[in-house]
């Protein structure tokens, strides 16, 4: 246990915060979908995966494409897929044709996840790919802050530059999303629907359009987070499964349907995983249980306070 020093703990915390912000971005779309449609999309990770692949193939085809534009295109592609799926499969839920919408949505999105993942295995193949970091950092040495192309040392603590870029994208996207939800007419419409469907429809908002829009936006956010993270992690068609389960954990931690909650939940999950893996006594199992720590916290929160930190009543 002699490796546990103050510096070590600070490093763990920092790692947890960085990855936590990224996790938060992953879950943002899911929480939006939940707040408006009241369902959890089990195919969330698959949209995340598709977003990453869109960027990968765009950059393969047009090598000098500005990465940020590639991210936007990835968002557009996943938006379209999400909207099509919503129109074809989720619309009947809003119309009351479905006996038990909650269960229907769970099973349906589960099927979609299965479908998309295997379609991608068929199309792109099962071999890992990865996109190199979008931008190289300049070389700097100021003592407390050193930078090289791939790494930044902040008080001697190494931080991957691609991770920093992804975190930046995450923060910008989250800010944009919160602005969109609170300041634009459409965003307020979404919020109105998420709070009271009937009242919203009385004041002239078409809830079923809002459903479609919310699902599309949710999948778009998933796609964009995948697009931003394809430089951080190696990419395979089943990369979405862990992303999905992390997103579930996060939205439950933060409170289903709450956007700031998603960010906070992401941070909590990142920190819990980081400290869990860093401090678990048996080193050979520390990493093996990394996912289990998050799941355990998740299960406990579900049991003790299912509404999470910011959640509304069940």
């Amino acid at each position, binding site marked *: 246990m002699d490796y546990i020093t103050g510096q070590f703990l600070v490093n763990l915390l920092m790692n947890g915060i960085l990855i936590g912000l990224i996790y938060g971005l992953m879950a943002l779309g899911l929480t939006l979908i939940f707040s408006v449609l009241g369902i959890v999309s089990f195919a969330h990770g698959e949209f995340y995966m598709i977003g990453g692949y869109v960027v990968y193939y765009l950059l393969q085809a047009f090598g000098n494409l500005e990465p940020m534009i590639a991210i936007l295109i990835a968002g557009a592609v996943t938006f379209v897929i999400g909207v099509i799926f919503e129109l074809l499969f989720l619309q009947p839920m809003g119309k009351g044709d479905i006996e038990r919408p909650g*269960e229907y949505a769970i099973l349906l999105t589960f099927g979609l996840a299965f479908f998309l993942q295997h379609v991608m295995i068929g199309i792109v193949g099962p071999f890992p790919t990865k996109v190199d970091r979008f931008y190289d950092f300049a070389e700097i040495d100021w003592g407390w802050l050193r930078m090289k192309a791939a790494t930044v040392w902040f008080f001697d603590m190494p931080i991957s530059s691609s991770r920093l870029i992804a975190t930046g994208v995450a923060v910008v996207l989250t800010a944009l999303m919160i602005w969109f939800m609170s300041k634009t007419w459409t965003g307020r419409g979404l919020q109105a629907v998420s709070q009271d469907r009937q009242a919203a429809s009385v004041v002239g908002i078409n809830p079923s359009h809002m459903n479609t829009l919310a699902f599309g936006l949710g999948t778009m956010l998933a796609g964009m987070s995948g697009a931003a993270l394809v430089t951080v992690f190696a990419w395979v068609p089943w990369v979405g499964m862990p992303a999905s389960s992390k997103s579930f954990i996060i939205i439950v931690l933060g409170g289903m349907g709450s956007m700031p909650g998603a960010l906070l939940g992401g941070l909590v999950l990142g920190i819990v995983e980081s400290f869990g893996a860093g401090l678990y006594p048996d080193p050979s199992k520390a990493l093996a249980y990394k996912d289990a720590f998050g799941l355990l916290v998740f299960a406990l929160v579900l049991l003790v306070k299912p509404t999470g930190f910011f959640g509304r009543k069940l």
Partner: protein
Amino acid sequence: MKRIPIQGVLLVLLLIFAFAFPRIMQGQPYWLYVALQSFFWAMMAASWALLAGYAGQFSFAHIAFMGIASYTSGILGRDLGWSPISGIILGTLMAGLVGVLVGYLCLRLRRTYLALFTIAFSEIVRLIINAEHEFTGGPMGLYMEPLLETTSYVPTYYIMLVALIVSLAIMYAIANSRLGLFLRSIREDEEAAAAMGVHVVRYKILAFVITSMIAGIAGALDHHIIGFIAPNELMIPRMSLVIAMAVIGGTESLISASLGAIFIHFAMEWLQKIPVPASWMPSLRENTATLQQFGLSLGEGYLQTNAWRMVLFGLMLMLTLRFWRNGLIQPLLEKIGRQGVAEETVAKRKFSQEENEIEGTEA
């Protein structure tokens, strides 16, 4: 009840077929083995249908109970030299015990929350089995003592068949007893059921216990027959297979769910390669490179579709949910069984619809 003779006849025919299967498939142990495995899936799907379709508890932990029972039996056999039979019994009890725990923890959780919690539980179980490899064998898997010291599948086929029939009979009896009635009322409306005097807590837990014990016995039996278990079998995609089988069969009928499982298991085997008509062959031959690009390949008159059958499967699950909410097999069975009654019911429904309309205009 008078109205099910057709169904009854069908059932008997089906049973006769099932018992005659080894005879029909003489010299083809492969199909016998496939059938044997399909019975395992049928038990899983039917017990999940009881839990989800009757009691309304959409749990994803079913495969974990299967794993718990199998691993308990396997480890007892390895470390304490227990015979498979006693191992299976204890494994099943263990699954039931964990079922009590999970059922109790899940009392307050509904729908999405329940699904998420049970997924987490199931993953934690798998991660523990994987990580504690000194004890469980971990990813290297665990040898399970064979149930019978024979390489023929005939006796094991009958064992699984009888296990399936007995478990279906037990579940059918439950579904049609007071307990089934209460479970369905809980599914429909917990609060109203409680107001009608139904002990919601007890029956919810009971549903978990019974179904997880059936999943447990199915798993323990099957893995003793295979002789080996690996944690890969507890992965969530395997659970989705169970769910898809039950959904495509029909979650509100045990027999439909189990027939769905058997049907899908056979279909998945058959779909490994699709026989391609000779007339297509020349054009397909020219495109061999394209085919291989997508993980397909062409044998003599066959198209390899290993990866793509999963795509088909996912699509089928989605379409079934969207357009045939009672599954594909259940409506079929109902149609056969209710021919005489159909008209009467339609008339009644029409009547009540009219009444509905009257009220609609008034409100």
